[in-house]
């Protein structure tokens, strides 16, 4: 069971994370639109990068399908990079999930986050089999060119209710905290 407050909070946390981590430069635009999860037409036949955030109360899966067309590759792939496209997409997804994890830690101190792994995107059609408490998909468009389909799936082990203070989201990444 999941409250409407928790659903709204997860939605807001994803949107904030996507806007800050799925763009490469601060001035880049990031449009996010809710779409049906079973909309396979947006990015067909793609692989999907999956990360999980787990706690005692819930497990959240973030699944990102990067369009494999030229516009998306050109946006994320730096000239001269020795990394493969898949490695670059995986790291971008890692950053996005990391931002969600960072925000969720404000409310759930017991979180653990996985490393990225890659699956065939057909698995998204089976998410309903997990009987998720929350399932939402989004079409993310960066600079009106790069396209990503994002899916957030949350399975709960206990009632989940929290209100994220999205106005308090801080850009604390990249700073060195010396001990």
């Amino acid at each position, binding site marked *: 069971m999941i409250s409407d407050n928790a659903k709204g909070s997860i939605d807001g946390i994803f949107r904030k994370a996507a806007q800050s*981590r799925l763009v490469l430069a601060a001035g880049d635009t990031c449009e996010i639109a809710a779409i049906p999860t079973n909309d396979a037409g947006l990015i067909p036949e793609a692989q999907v990068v999956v990360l999980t955030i787990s706690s005692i109360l819930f497990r959240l899966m973030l699944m990102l399908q990067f369009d494999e067309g030229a516009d998306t590759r050109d946006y994320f792939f730096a000239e001269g*990079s*020795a*990394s*493969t496209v898949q*490695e*670059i997409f*995986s*790291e971008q997804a*890692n*950053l996005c*999930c*990391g*931002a969600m*994890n*960072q925000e969720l*830690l404000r409310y759930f*101190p017991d*979180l653990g*986050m*996985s*490393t990225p792994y890659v699956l065939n995107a057909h698995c998204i059609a089976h998410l309903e089999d997990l009987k998720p408490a929350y399932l939402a998909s989004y079409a993310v468009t960066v600079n009106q060119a790069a396209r990503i389909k994002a899916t957030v799936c949350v399975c709960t082990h206990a009632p989940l209710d929290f209100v994220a203070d999205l106005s308090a989201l801080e850009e*604390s*990444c*990249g*700073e*060195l*905290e*010396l*001990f």
Partner: protein
Amino acid sequence: MSKILVVDDSSTVRDEVAGFLKKNGLDVDTAVDGRDGLAKLKASPGIKLVISDVNMPNMDGLTMVEKIRGELANTSVNIIMLTTESSPAMKERGKAAGVKGWIVKPFKGDAVLETFRKLAG
């Protein structure tokens, strides 16, 4: 010249961080996980600063730090964690193991370059 070791299983991050440091005149080596990082540190006494991810296959970053402090007790190497992990518990574990500092990804080189120079000096 003192050297910096960048440890991350993501080639994207290794390229980004090592490339930035090299471009700024620093001597850099890379390792793909904690086990590789530990081996390279043992083989290269000139390494003065390690910048490491936490979540990696084979050996994670904090286990690597604990082994460095245990097996290379005489080394004065500074260790900075560069990771998506931001939990206070994880930072405390790092602090207890002898980590000098913590950076939550993404990497912003300009913000930390001078500190890295000092720690590697």
